[in-house]
């Protein structure tokens, strides 16, 4: 069976599954509520689940991800039925038993949890552990089948998992981007055009759907960023260290496969009534909405586990599996960035999980953590939430800044200026990041005087960030810059420029008095899109263009790479400048409509056009990415003339990485020092395993 053929049958089954699922959902809904609801949640729910599962069945048959999804659906239904049965025995009937969304809220939450766990069993992510528990032996390595099929099932190879993460991230980026295009279209002009109050989808009105899409755009993008970073780290870090895999290959696979049910849960939240809270999920608003809010909380909760376990694995790998001679100050700089990122993910993610869990319990069990009527405090939630969610921003960017530092020396043929300072600045940002969270809460009603120390700590972040910028400029200064600039260099330089704009627009938000004006406006939206594009999106693309030959043995098309860059960069700059401008003039965040009298119509139209141009450029990238896997120019050698160990062996990388171990004998970035070497392969000896 060839690939194109099976994708074709997958698409066919996607359509059939969607139609059949829609029909079943419509029928069930009609039986429960007494009348069919054509745009309702239950029909949409069955259509989504059936079509996705059928697609993978067509592509891959009943194994791997297909089996996982099937088990997730079955687990969700069984869990939901279990709770529904208990409620029935407790004497509940009718709408008290079912609620408006096929299951009642407690049944959904329990079912979703059972479903997520079932997925992991179904896909096979816990097979080896179950065997160990039963006293059976498993081989150290599971040999993967050659070809693309290994990517749709459980593999323990860090390179396969890295690519699984990356492709999942690209899928979610596309979904999150699609959501943005939908609401960006509504915003193109003032007044409500199609998301009106008479519009109905998934039991929501137009403004409610806007809120749900806007909130999901945020959270889906955040999850895709975490997955994208995990993808690059998984693929690259062991190669940079000279390791044959991650420290815990099974946990590595487990962490990746957690992300799939998490993504399903997040998408379910849109269908099950949506959630109107923004990705921040502040109570009391989040303690009121429909069951979709719970799916959102659960999705983030499961994705958080993925992030924590992945970070633990990276740290263990860096600590235990470095090549001989690779001392702390001879680590590739990207490894330092990965360590800083992982420290934050490992220690802060619990807090967002906890804060969401508290709201879940408040809804399910009536515990009044954030309910003022029961002595709770809504502002407490914000402290817990931001204690993770601010450091999380540094998770998003630190890794990308590491990619910039890693790639620059290769393309300017000069050592990274002030290596130690750059390495330490990553740790500095990570640590300072833990004491700045309340700058998101200057208008929240927290203690007035506490705002001042948080202003000091927040502004302090500028110092290590400045060290990075100055060091990059000094690295470029006097270099021999590759001309014409290859695509990875374009994205690296673009990243510096865009992140600079994000960085410079940060201090005004940190300064309490100015933030009283800027908070919750489009200025903030523009500012953080700058930081995220500069800190994640541009470096992520740079990394994909740069390491693509390592993974596939082929290059991505340079021409289309440049089109991607030159289309995306100006559109993006106009987009964020426009956002910041109208934000200063009075455009609030998270609104489906704005006063015509504000005179923002033209700007919003331009912003929408820019949004579509960015989407077009990403589409060009995606086509280039998937096409080049098969048809790209063959490139098995040291494409970028890099000193890094992974480029000293032919591409694509073999299954267990380096056949011969290497030893670190010099500095990583000594470009221009004649006769210097970073690594030396051990003289050929008995075959290593």
């Amino acid at each position: 069976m060839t690939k194109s053929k099976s994708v074709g049958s997958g698409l066919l089954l996607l359509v059939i599954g969607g139609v059949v699922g829609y029909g079943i959902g419509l029928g069930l809904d009609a039986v429960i509520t007494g009348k069919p609801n054509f745009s309702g949640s239950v029909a949409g729910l069955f259509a989504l689940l059936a079509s996705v599962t059928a697609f993978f069945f067509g592509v891959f048959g009943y194994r791997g991800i297909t089996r996982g999804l099937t088990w997730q659906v079955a687990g969700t239904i069984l869990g939901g039925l279990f709770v529904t049965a208990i409620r029935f025995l407790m004497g509940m009937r009718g709408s008290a038993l079912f609620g408006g969304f096929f299951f009642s809220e407690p049944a959904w939450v329990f079912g979703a949890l059972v479903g997520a766990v079932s997925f992991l069993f179904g896909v096979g992510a816990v097979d080896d552990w179950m065997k160990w528990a039963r006293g059976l032996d498993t081989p150290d390595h599971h040999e993967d089948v050659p070809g693309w099929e290994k990517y749709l099932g459980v593999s323990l190879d860090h390179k396969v998992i890295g690519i699984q993460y990356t492709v999942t991230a690209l899928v979610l980026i596309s979904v999150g981007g699609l959501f943005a295009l939908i609401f960006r279209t509504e915003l193109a002009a003032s007044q409500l055009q199609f998301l009106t109050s008479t519009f109905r989808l998934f039991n929501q009105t137009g403004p409610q759907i806007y809120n749900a899409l806007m909130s999901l755009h945020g959270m889906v993008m955040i999850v895709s960023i975490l997955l994208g970073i995990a993808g690059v780290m998984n693929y690259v870090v062991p190669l940079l260290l000279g390791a044959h895999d991650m420290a815990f290959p099974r946990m590595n696979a487990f962490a990746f496969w957690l992300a799939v049910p998490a993504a399903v849960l997040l998408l379910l939240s849109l269908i099950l009534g949506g959630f109107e809270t923004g990705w921040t999920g502040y109570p009391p608003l989040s303690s009121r909405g429909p069951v979709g809010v719970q799916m959102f909380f659960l999705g983030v909760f499961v994705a958080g586990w993925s992030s924590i376990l992945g970070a633990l694995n990276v740290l263990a790998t860096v600590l235990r599996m470095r090549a001989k001679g690779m001392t702390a100050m001879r680590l590739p700089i990207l490894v330092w960035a990965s360590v800083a990122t992982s420290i934050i993910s490992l220690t802060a993610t619990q807090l967002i999980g906890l804060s969401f869990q508290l709201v879940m319990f408040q809804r399910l069990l009536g515990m009044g953590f954030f309910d003022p009527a029961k002595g709770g405090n809504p502002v407490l939630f914000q402290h817990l939430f931001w204690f993770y969610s601010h450091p999380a921003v540094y998770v998003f960017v630190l890794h990308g800044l590491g990619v910039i530092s890693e790639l620059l020396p290769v393309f300017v043929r000069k050592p990274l200026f002030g290596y130690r300072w750059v390495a330490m600045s990553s740790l500095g940002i990570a640590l300072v990041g833990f004491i700045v969270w309340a700058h998101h809460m200057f208008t929240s009603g927290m203690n007035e005087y506490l705002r001042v120390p948080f202003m000091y700590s927040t502004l302090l972040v500028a110092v290590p960030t400045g060290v990075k910028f100055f060091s990059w400029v000094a690295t470029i200064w006097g270099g021999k810059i590759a001309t014409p600039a290859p695509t990875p260099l374009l994205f690296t330089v673009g990243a510096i420029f865009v992140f600079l704009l994000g960085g410079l627009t940060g201090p005004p938000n940190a300064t309490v008095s100015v933030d009283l004006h800027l908070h919750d406006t489009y200025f903030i939206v523009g500012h953080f899109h700058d930081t995220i594009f500069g800190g994640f999106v541009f470096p992520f693309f740079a990394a994909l263009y740069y390491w693509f030959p390592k993974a596939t043995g082929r290059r991505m098309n340079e021409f289309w790479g440049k089109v991607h860059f030159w289309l995306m960069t100006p559109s993006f700059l106009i987009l964020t400048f426009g956002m910041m401008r109208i934000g200063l003039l009075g455009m609030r965040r998270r609104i489906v409509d704005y006063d015509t009298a504000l005179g923002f119509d033209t700007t919003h139209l331009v912003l929408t056009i820019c949004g579509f141009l960015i989407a077009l450029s990403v589409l060009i990238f995606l086509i280039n990415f998937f096409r080049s896997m098969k048809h790209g120019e063959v490139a098995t050698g040291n494409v970028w003339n890099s000193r890094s160990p992974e480029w000293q062996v032919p591409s694509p990388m073999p299954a267990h990485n380096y056949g011969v171990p290497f030893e670190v004998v010099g500095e990583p970035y000594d470009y221009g020092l004649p006769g210097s070497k970073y690594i030396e392969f051990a003289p050929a000896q008995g075959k290593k395993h």
Partner: protein
Amino acid sequence: MRHFVVVGILVILMAVLTYVGLDSAGLMPVQASAQAVPIDRMWNEQVIAMSFLFALIVVPMVYSLLVFRRKKGDTTDAAHVEGNTKLEIVWTILPLFAVLVFAYLGGNSLAQTLRADPDAMVVKVTGRQWSWSFEYPGYGVTSTELRLPVGKQVYLQMTSTDVIHSFWVPEFRVKQDLVPGRVTELRITPTLEGSWKVRCAEICGAAHYSMQTPVTVMSQADFDAWMAGEVALVSEAAATPEGRGEALVRANGCTACHAVNGVGGNIGPSWNGAFGEEVKLADGSTVPGDEAYLTESIKSPQAKIMAGYETQLMPTYGLTDEQIADIVSFIKTLK
């Protein structure tokens, strides 16, 4: 050396151009409060710093990309420069110093926006999904619009009855959340007569976008005249049930969702003709739109939802039976 001189000149040029460009772009809305003055000054200082730092990074970067390009046919590496510890210390210490200066200035600027006038006029602000009401305790008047005398500090004591909202008038700059279960404060001294809008800045549900109401700053004489009129209306209205009902409707911001005589929101059904006509319910049945139905719909809004409004959750307002009866009397007057 020549490179450094050229870049130095270009940095200064670029910084000045950037600042002039940003400054002349009119970045901020009209300055209409005393609190806006220190904020705008602080913002301007930030723009100066931004312009300088922008030039400091971008100019040498772009210069390098243009001037230090690899010549055709050159395959050698660049000069081996690993770093410069003195330089690194300089660009750690100087920004640290700048940061402390800005934090200090920021603290001062904040203090100026918080300055309290002991003679400030108190206004109690209530936010709810999705309307505002303003109570003037000195006068016994409650309004759905905020009217303020120019040049006099107003001390807003704010709370919410449901979820978190945020009080923001862009022309006044300052912003403060309204938190259920507690009272938050904001002090504003309007300095310019005119008409603006308070806009809810914290997402609060489906109609968050439309949670806004006019703010009018007027001369003290105009304000006094308006207030006298309001006070007279209050005492007049208190005499009849429908008058009391209308006052309650205003105090509770009902028209944010329910249109009265064509004015108001469309999130809930219009009240004109609500009394006396058959009501089609979401489950397909019909009920007479009588006093009992209206009373029940205010008391427990989810009991019988009108067709077309299934997804809208109306809150309960904690009204007494007499108050509800007054509101129903008011609705009965609307044809």
